[in-house]
């Protein structure tokens, strides 16, 4: 019984599209319509619009499309009207009719002849219009897709003071347009594929030939081929399915919502993965230092940018360390502090019933609760949350002697520092708790153990074969130029090594041609 059941389940799960693989269209118009009706049963949005040519009654047609997926203008003006009113000759060969219509009648940019049913079904689903003709075994597929898309706006998560405000949208074509407008070069390659057995999401691999590394491209294609999933709703699915170091809190595949960032990364030799219906574009390989890079760094004065980047790097280190170091000093190594400070800290701890570790842990958790609540809530309620958070959990908690004031200061400092590096937020939160627990057991030594362990982890992971800590540890040659600081543009003549391994030269100047390209 179980075997039968399993088989039945298998039958049900079988991909509908696969069954259509070998089917062809018939010659009878009504039979074809019935066939399509049968495939799309219980789907009222599929429209069958039958019509005839004015002059020749034999030219019976039927336009098939999905309501809402097409642009009615195109269907009315460019498909139905020309076929209705065209003055075809009487003695026309009915077998040549599709070609005749394709070449002489229909006024649309993209028309194809097709008789494979699976192709036909998928193109209707994509928003094309199908034109069935009586007594023909081939049908015309006319591209007519048009649906409402979101306007181009500035992405909330990556705001800039200076630089392009454009943000990517959910439409893959629009995204590609935005990227191509920035890189107008035939070397910009776009490879399309479909992922998802149900969603058939279009995914585009975008790279610049002769700059992007072929090995990384091959590896990426291999990993994309291995994906076998029913649907890709957002590029986040792909991100997690193709990443290295799957258990690491650090991202090894980058994502951005800004076309200028994508273009800049493509120029550095990275590869972008654009997924339909998702405004975030993935970039590989992704290395640690990119977490603290911002696109604005490259548009502003380099001294100011370097300072900002330095702040971001330091804030990552501080965000994970401050609670742990505070805890280990007040519980284990009070002798490290000057006496007045020790006195004032212990005075503020007077009357607080909980140990420092517990109150720090709870306060950090509450901070994260507030952050998560504020992200998900409508803006108006969010303000209420802010007020409650700051007043009740800050001052009131100290006055009620539930926590000591230094704990609040440490929590707030660490929380704000976390928000400096939005891309690292997940990693920072996890590592902060790890360090806190370690230093509650072994004091500052526990913290050092944690630092060594995290450094080992960071040094061991790779993103598509590129070491994650690339350019952080080896300050050799030109590689330091875009790490903790942002070197001035006139000095960055080469692309980062390994990533853009094929073509390192970025700027050509005759004066200083000293550096080799090897």
């Amino acid at each position, binding site marked *: 019984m179980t075997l039968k059941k399993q088989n039945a389940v298998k039958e049900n799960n079988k991909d509908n599209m696969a069954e259509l693989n070998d089917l062809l269209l018939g010659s009878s118009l009504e039979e074809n319509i019935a066939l399509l009706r049968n495939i799309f049963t219980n789907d009222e949005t599929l429209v069958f619009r039958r019509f005839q040519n004015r002059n020749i009654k034999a030219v019976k047609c039927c336009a098939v499309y999905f309501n809402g997926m097409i642009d009615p203008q195109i269907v009315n003006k460019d498909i139905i009207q020309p076929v209705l009113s065209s003055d075809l000759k009487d003695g026309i060969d009915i077998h040549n009719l599709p070609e005749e219509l394709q070449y002489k009648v229909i006024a649309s940019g993209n028309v194809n002849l097709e008789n494979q049913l699976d192709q036909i079904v998928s193109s209707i689903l994509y928003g094309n219009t199908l034109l069935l003709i009586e007594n023909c075994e081939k049908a015309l597929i006319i591209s007519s897709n048009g649906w409402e898309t979101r306007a181009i706006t500035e992405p909330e998560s990556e705001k800039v003071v200076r630089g392009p405000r454009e943000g990517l949208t959910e439409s893959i074509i629009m995204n590609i347009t935005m990227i191509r407008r920035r890189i107008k070069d035939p070397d910009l390659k776009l490879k399309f594929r479909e992922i998802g057995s149900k969603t058939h999401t279009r995914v585009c691999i975008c790279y610049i030939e002769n700059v992007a590394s072929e090995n990384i491209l091959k590896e990426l294609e291999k990993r994309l081929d291995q994906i076998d999933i029913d649907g890709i709703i957002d590029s986040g699915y792909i991100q997690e399915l193709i990443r290295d170091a799957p258990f690491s809190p650090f991202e090894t595949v980058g994502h951005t919502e800004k076309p200028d960032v994508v273009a800049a990364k493509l120029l550095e030799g990275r590869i972008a993965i654009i997924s339909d219906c998702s405004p975030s574009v993935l970039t590989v390989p992704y290395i640690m230092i990119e977490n603290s890079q911002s696109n604005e760094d490259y548009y502003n004065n380099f001294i100011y940018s370097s300072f900002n980047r330095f702040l971001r790097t330091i804030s990552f280190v501080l965000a994970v360390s401050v609670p742990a170091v505070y805890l280990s000093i007040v519980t284990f190594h009070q002798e490290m502090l000057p006496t007045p400070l020790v006195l004032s800290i212990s005075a503020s701890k007077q009357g607080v019933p909980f140990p420092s570790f517990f109150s720090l842990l709870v306060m950090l958790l509450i901070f994260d609760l507030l952050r998560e609540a504020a992200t998900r809530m409508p803006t108006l309620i969010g303000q209420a949350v802010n007020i409650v958070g700051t007043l009740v959990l800050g001052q009131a908690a100290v006055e009620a002697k539930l926590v000591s004031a230094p704990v609040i200061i440490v929590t707030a400092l660490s929380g704000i520092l976390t928000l400096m590096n939005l891309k690292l937020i997940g990693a920072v939160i996890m590592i902060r708790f790890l360090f806190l627990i370690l230093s509650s057991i*072994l004091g500052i*030594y526990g913290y050092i153990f944690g630092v060594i*362990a995290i450094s080992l982890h960071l040094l061991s992971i790779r993103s598509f074969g590129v070491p994650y800590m690339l350019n952080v540890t080896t300050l050799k040659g030109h590689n330091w130029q875009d790490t903790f600081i942002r070197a001035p543009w006139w000095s960055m003549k080469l692309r980062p090594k390994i990533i853009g391994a094929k073509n390192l030269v970025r700027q050509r100047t005759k004066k200083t041609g000293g550096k080799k390209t090897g």
Partner: protein
Amino acid sequence: MGKELITDKEAICLLMLFTMGSTLILGVGSDAKNDAWLAVIAGLLMSLPVILIYSRLLSIFPGKDLFEILDMTLGRLLGKLVALIYIWYAFHLGALVLRNFGEFMVTMTMPETPIFVPMLGLGLLCVFAVRLGIEEIGRISAYLLPVLMIILLIVLGLAIPQFELTNLKPVLGKGLGPVINGGFSAFSFPFAESAILLGAFFCLKTKKSPFKVYTLAILFAGTLIMVLTIRNISLLGQLTSKLYFPSYVAVSRISVGDFIQRIEVTVSIIFVVGAFAKSSICLLVASRGIQRIFKLKDYRKVVIQLGSLMVLLSYIVYDTTMMMQYWAFKVYRYYAFPMQVIFPVIIWIIAEAKKNKSKPAGKKAPANE
């Protein structure tokens, strides 16, 4: 995963950390009292020929580790026997380092914590590192060493105003005897302990690398140890040789103005990193030895069990801190002498003989190297 490779720079950093690891906190050559810094130089000079033999061995058999070399030179049975001794040596040394760290923690910084906790912590970290492999250990030491050097130099700079160089006098006050004695002690701990690295440096890039790595690293580390010994003596005077952890006490005396004082935590940071590097190398070599003896596929598979055993051994190995001190300065040098000198010399002689024999035999032999 391909062959593991580490660059020369990483190897130098690794060897330096290994050599300085527990030395920086335990001190060397206490037999020589205020001439301990001379004893360091003596130890360095004594260790140079041995180190050249180690590097020669590695360059005769490039890409091979100690245990394969033993197999090829001493034959299968004897080779395995000596390999067992080396495994024990590495394993035991790792446990001793763990124990040093634990003793340091409970006597100096955290008296309430049971000694098992810091040792277990460090042991876990070592297991984690060794499971990642030698490449990662090499990379992290190339990344930690500069940080440590900066800390060391800053502390040294702060200490200079308080130096009392009269503590160094009289130079050679008791004659050469104690210096040679202390030198021998410094030779066996830490310089010749680099014999352990024979089991880890299968991953050097070229045939020339071993010489460069060994000589540079030992010279740098030796100079640093000497400078720090001078620092300790000139800050503490006669007290140096009576303390278990002279560096820690010496640095705790540094105070600049009212602001910078009690900076001994820097010493313990350095010690943590050094102890980590040293014991993880020991664990790595021991597990590689077990892999070779039992012909396992991957040394990473025995690391967890071996690491837990190492932590337990470090827990039971001494009864008191005094015993640790007695071992480190009185017994250890005789115990380690065969592994550090006798076996390597024997292997080296056999290897040279075999090489000379095989060279005229056919043209293939040089190509294999």
